[in-house]
């Protein structure tokens, strides 16, 4: 997949509102592979909705979302499963980790599915992001900032054309944000994926090709 197009897309809940001022809603927007985008938004402007529309788990929008020209409403369950394994990666705002599994098990659950990374590589990221000591700890007993880093590592455990990060550094200090940005840049250079980051204040420090206001 090379482009994600939004054609006049608008969440249904916004349909009645007048005067929507946005770089994305109700416009023609295209995200390209190998580029990086920052979407800045105030809360309640539909940032997470955008992610869920693109990731195929909500359909309550108007307009068209298209992957390489194919309307995503036409995709079947099996297509979505394949996309989520092979070309779309998502770091959810609410993380969607499994509290009863350990940090390593959470990552492994994804990696088992894709077989994309080896354990050593994952271990290295754990060390770089300063959570190596949490390897065998249940997610439920970790802070949100620590969990964000685990979810970030999990998001990298698959081949991707685009990676979406929904407020990835909301609970991280600047140091960890920079570490995360560095790993992401390295991986983007290797795989050539497009990066879409959302933020309501703190940004993941990257060289963005475009900054948009939602």
């Amino acid at each position: 997949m090379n482009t994600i197009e939004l054609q006049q897309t608008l969440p249904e809940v916004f349909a009645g509102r007048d005067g929507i001022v946005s770089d994305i809603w109700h416009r023609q927007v295209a995200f390209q592979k190998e580029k990086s985008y920052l979407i800045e938004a105030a809360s309640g402007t539909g940032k997470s909705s955008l992610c869920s529309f693109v990731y195929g788990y909500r359909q309550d929008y108007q307009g068209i979302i298209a992957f390489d020209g194919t309307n995503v409403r036409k995709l079947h369950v099996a297509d979505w499963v394949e996309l989520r394994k092979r070309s779309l990666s998502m770091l959810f705002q609410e993380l969607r980790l499994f509290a009863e599994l350990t940090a390593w098990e959470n990552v492994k659950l994804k990696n088992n599915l894709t077989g994309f990374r080896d354990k050593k590589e994952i271990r290295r990221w754990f060390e770089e992001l300063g959570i190596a000591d949490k390897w065998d700890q249940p997610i439920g007993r970790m802070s949100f900032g620590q969990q964000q880093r685990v979810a970030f590592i999990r998001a990298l455990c698959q081949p991707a054309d685009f990676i979406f990060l929904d407020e990835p550094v909301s609970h991280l200090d600047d140091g960890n944000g920079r570490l995360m940005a560095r790993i992401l840049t390295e991986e983007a250079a290797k795989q050539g994926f497009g990066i879409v980051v959302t933020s309501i204040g703190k940004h993941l420090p990257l060289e963005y090709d475009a900054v948009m206001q939602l």
Partner: protein
Amino acid sequence: MIWKLLKQHVSVSQLTGFFLANLCGMVIVLLSVQFYSDVLPAFTAGDSFLKKDYIIVSKRVSTLGSAVGQNTGFTEAEVSDLKTQPFTERVGEFRPAQFKVSAGMGLEGMQLSTAMFFESVPDGFVDVNLDGWHFEPGMQEIPIVIPRNYLNLYNFGFAQSRNMPQISEGMMGMMPLDIRLSGRGQVSRMQGRIVGFSDRLNTILVPESFLEWANSQYGEGVKEEPSRLILEVKNPADDRIAKYFKDKGYETENDKLDAGKTTWFLKVIVGIVLSVGLLISVLSFYLLMLSIYLLLQKNTTKLENLLLIGYSPAKVAAPYQGLTATLNAFVFILALVAVVLVRNAYLDRLTQLFPSLEAGSVWPACVAGAVLFVIVSLLNIFAIRKKIDKIWYRR
């Protein structure tokens, strides 16, 4: 790994409840199927050479009729009227021997001899598979079918009171009978061999070909009206038959009807037990579905997250489907074991009651159980998948 995640909230007590309830239902269902197939032959066996839809018809012998010398034979007009009835498939006449017969047999040095009679029906009414139901002029051996009552009369009445050995059906078939035929001033000796027993036919039956030959040799050549008819009907339960017979004053031999009644009662009772078993099975299936639904409901977030990180609905459903299928399989196997145990217990008693009963197999229970297992498991698997699909579509 998925299992580690999804096994949470699995309620052991609910599943145990399902397990026991389903086991209970399954055992009842399988046992009734097995019992039915084991016991049924006891009621239907015995008349290997007469099919079920044959009826034997005679006229009522009344005191007044006997006094005035009324004939109990069927006239040609009556026979052809019967042939035209809608329930009739075909009609055969019993042909009596027109000569004298006496039979004797030697047993432990003691000679028994008795006057007898022979009758025949057209060969088409006799099951052709019956071994040795065949006679040609020149043969010295006559195949004979006798009522089972005769043997019982001997075994339980005569032999016991005189301290003589009892004879089994198999032994009886091996014993030669000395048959003496006489008529038109001739006497000849032949051998008789008993090839079958009947519960339904109160006569001594020989092949038609023998009777034709013997009547021409020893008989007077007078054509007599048949006193009994054998009737093949389309449906023995047809109530027009009973009405017709009542109007005409005919009688049928009743024991067949009794066997029919017994099998009917057997069917009803087994049917009731079977429905109770099925009902319990259905309820337990419902219990399992509720339990699984509850489990899925409690794990909805987890299932949703699994789907969102790229697991397919099939993969997410698999652990639950596996769980139910395994449970069902255990129930099936345990139920079969229970049925085999119970069957061994009643089989002893059954063979005492019906010595001639051949031991069947447990196949009916196996097949019924397998069918039930497959249906229930498929329904479970299907229902779970539907539920997971619902989670995918967030409904």
